[in-house]
């Protein structure tokens, strides 16, 4: 097996009319992720080194496995990231996802998701998903409703 350098980075950014605390909750609590993250429930105590998992909302199947690398509520969260539901994706080295929440003048926030150290297959897999998740998160926090799609 050849070892390829995983050095692809993707960046997704959105402005949300919500407080940093609300955004932090939406990222780290299962009752929120279930409404904008493909129905998955996040599971973590957010301590450094603790597991950071996403399970299917209906079957409890473990879909994403990771570890908390950095946690500075309500500003910055970095986790490692590995998809388990596809053998090709699971075979790549874990990537890193960082969430940055920055309070702006006027009380709204800038939310940036940086997905780094991506392998080619995982990069292709997530490119369509993140815009959907991030815009769904904005819609949920601003209207209280998930996107219908």
């Amino acid at each position, binding site marked *: 097996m050849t070892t390829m350098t995983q050095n*692809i*980075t*993707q*960046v*997704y*950014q*959105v*402005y949300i009319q919500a407080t940093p605390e609300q955004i932090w909750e939406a990222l780290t609590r299962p009752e929120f992720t279930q409404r904008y993250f493909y129905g998955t429930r996040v599971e973590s105590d957010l301590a450094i080194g603790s597991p950071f998992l996403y399970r299917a909302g209906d079957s409890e199947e473990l879909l994403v496995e990771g570890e908390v690398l950095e946690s500075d509520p309500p500003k910055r969260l970095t986790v490692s990231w590995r998809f388990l539901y596809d053998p090709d994706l699971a075979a790549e080295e874990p990537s890193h996802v960082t969430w940055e929440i920055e309070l702006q003048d006027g009380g709204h926030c800038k939310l*940036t998701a*940086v997905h780094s150290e991506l392998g080619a297959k995982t990069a292709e897999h997530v490119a369509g998903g993140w*815009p*959907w998740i*991030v*815009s769904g998160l*904005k*819609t949920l926090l601003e209207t209280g409703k998930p*996107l*219908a*799609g």
Partner: protein
Amino acid sequence: MHDDDRVFRALADPTRRHLLDRLHERDGRTLTELESELEMTRFGVMKHLKVLEDAGLVVTRRSGREKLHFLNPVPIRLIHDRWIDKYTERYVSALADLKTKLEETG
């Protein structure tokens, strides 16, 4: 200017769409890299990148001494959701209504 106006204005230019295409091919490029693929002065490319950045379509990150440019498709997704999502919602609620009706009569 409204956010959506900025997005449409930014997209209404072939050079800026070309810059987004380049970033879509490979993300995280420097100004120098982007400039080398265009028949345009460095200043011209900078001006276009600034319009894209103001519209939220390009996000820059520092990596050491370099400033890297990334394509941010979220504003386009939000425009999509604004018009498309309403119809999927109607479709979903129509199905839900149908289910309720069938269960009532069944």
